[in-house]
């Protein structure tokens, strides 16, 4: 089996399997812990709406914190949105997703994607620099933070290299000439998938649990969420 066949077949299946089982385990690890029933008289019983509200409201920092967190919020949004645009807006990715799920939607022009990719890479580099140099972040950071950064950056870098290997209709799937580069890109994406449940990248899922927990508990007390 050559590399590209593995990357598109067994490799991908294995990565998805680990991803799904890993996330399920991560959630199970939380939910297996006991819940203490709160017997205090709630100020409101709208705990579900509190949870949902907090999941959304925390997307924008409270006014009082805006000045002090402006940079990290903007940079955070930049690479999160950048990654989303690249993953879901780039034609070869859509073709790839269509092949697996049957879903499809129109792609963004390649020029836009290239620009976004460049911005995303810069933004991630800035995030890394800040992490290493800011005393608070340097103190908090461990292997997970740096490795998670690395596996996020890797598909971006290999993706840039793979651009040149695209086939006639802009699809990675018929990129026969330079299959190795595309294969490496796919493998790097698979590494990201495999790592995701194990480190802090799991916040993609945990953010809902965590914000939801606080939202419902604060709502019970009638406190701001």
């Amino acid at each position, binding site marked *: 089996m050559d590399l590209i066949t593995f990357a598109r077949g067994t490799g991908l299946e294995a990565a998805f399997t680990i991803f799904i089982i890993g996330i399920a385990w991560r959630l199970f690890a939380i*939910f297996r*812990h006991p819940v203490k029933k709160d*017997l205090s008289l709630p100020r409101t019983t709208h705990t579900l709406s509190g949870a949902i509200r907090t999941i959304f409201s925390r997307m924008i920092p409270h006014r009082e*914190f805006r000045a002090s967190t402006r940079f990290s919020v903007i940079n955070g949004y930049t690479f999160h949105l950048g990654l989303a645009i690249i993953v879901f807006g780039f034609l070869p990715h859509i073709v790839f997703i269509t092949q697996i799920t049957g879903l499809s939607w129109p792609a963004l022009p390649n020029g836009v994607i290239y620009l976004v990719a460049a911005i995303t890479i810069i933004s991630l580099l800035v995030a890394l620099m800040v992490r290493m140099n800011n005393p*608070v972040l340097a103190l908090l950071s461990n292997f997970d933070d740096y490795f998670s950064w690395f596996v996020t950056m890797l598909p971006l870098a290999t993706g840039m290299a793979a651009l040149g290997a695209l086939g006639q209709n802009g699809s990675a799937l018929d990129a026969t000439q330079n299959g190795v580069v595309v294969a490496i890109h796919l493998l790097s994406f698979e590494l990201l998938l495999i790592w995701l449940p194990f480190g802090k990248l799991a916040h993609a899922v*945990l*953010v809902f*649990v965590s914000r939801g927990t606080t939202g419902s508990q604060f709502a019970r007390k009638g*406190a701001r969420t």
Partner: protein
Amino acid sequence: MSDIDTLHPLELDTPRLSVENPQTRYDKQGERPDEERVTAAMQRFAKDFGRTAATYMESCIHCGQCAQACHFYTSTQNPKYTPIWKLEPFKQAYKRESGAFSFIYKALNLKHKVTIEELEEWQTLLYDSCTMCGRCSLICPMGIDIATLVGQARHGMFAAGLVPHELWAVAERAEREGSPLGATAKVLKERIDWLADENEIEIPMDKSQADVLIALSSIEIMKYPQSIVSTAKVLNHLGLSWTLRSDGYEATNFGLLSGNSEWQKDLSMKLIQAAIDCSAKLVIMPECGHAYGALRWQGANMYGKPLPFQVLHISEFLAEKVQSGEIKLKALGKSITFHDPCQISRRGGATQAPRDVIHALGADLKETQDTGDLNWCCGGGGGVVTIHRADPLRHKAFEIKMQQIDAAGADIAVTSCSNCRQTFDDGQAHFQWDKTMHSLLELVADNLIE
């Protein structure tokens, strides 16, 4: 040589300028091998690893934003005061013992066991530099409620006998005598007799039947007795059937602050039992922040079933009465800046109540730049004000308050927590600041239209 502290020897061999804290000072209670202390802390930590703690421990993304919300970090810029860093041993214990991948961490020893040195080092972070004000919970993009976790981590510290000694001592005194500041039932009775005489006011004690039970904080009994007179004035004016009870009056809960949940329960149960014994329908908590949280939000959990009475903070009670028109107030003719006590506003959900009262006083409310639920903490909550070695840090943090209150430019500063008030008094004396903190309750009592 007599002034050399043999317990905490000076590090004379270390190069001078590299030593940030030449004398790390931590306190220990009792004589026990270190091994036993660590084991006790771990067992207690494990007890607190419920679903909420697990969620938060799994979710932190190390973004460091919480630092920006904490008065101890922002006033010192010392990274060790980053809120989530204060929980590092708790987090490490969780990841090793109870987390999603604890089996890997343990098998490969990737997260080493928490050591006694770490627990000792973190004593100052968990006690001296966290008021459990919860401001950081509102900045965290993952919504992690650090104040709750600090409260839980303190349980383990208490179990290990690693509590700042002053805080331990007041908690122990509260458990033994019923009050952390020596306001025993006898002292209370004498004070009440004297206050009633002096002010020619009726202060009912130990009634066997009353609709309303009043709780007091010992800070008020010992330091701000006028607030007791004010309470009596308001309740008598309303013509309510109320009482103070010498078997349950202390509202502060140093069991909660020091991290001993047995003591916390004992202290809460005294109030709960007193309320049940006189068939109170309502317990009014005094101007004290954590006292409110201890009964309003944790009392039922201590009791083991829902409380058979309502719990209101005095500011909520006053707000209800001004709104129903039962209390009418003279116009104050002054502008007010209100300092929100964290446990009542941000963590208690009663942010609007004091504002309604201030409105009824006809005062012009000049809010500080960060206010209401996002108010900066006074720096003295969570038991911090009792820890002497924390004074320099607390004063540093207090500078934020002075600056914001000065900038708001109101005639007087008002709060509804006697612990905040005490912290402000101390800050005022330390900085020779020209602002005095007033009590909302006393303002109401002084301006009642009889």
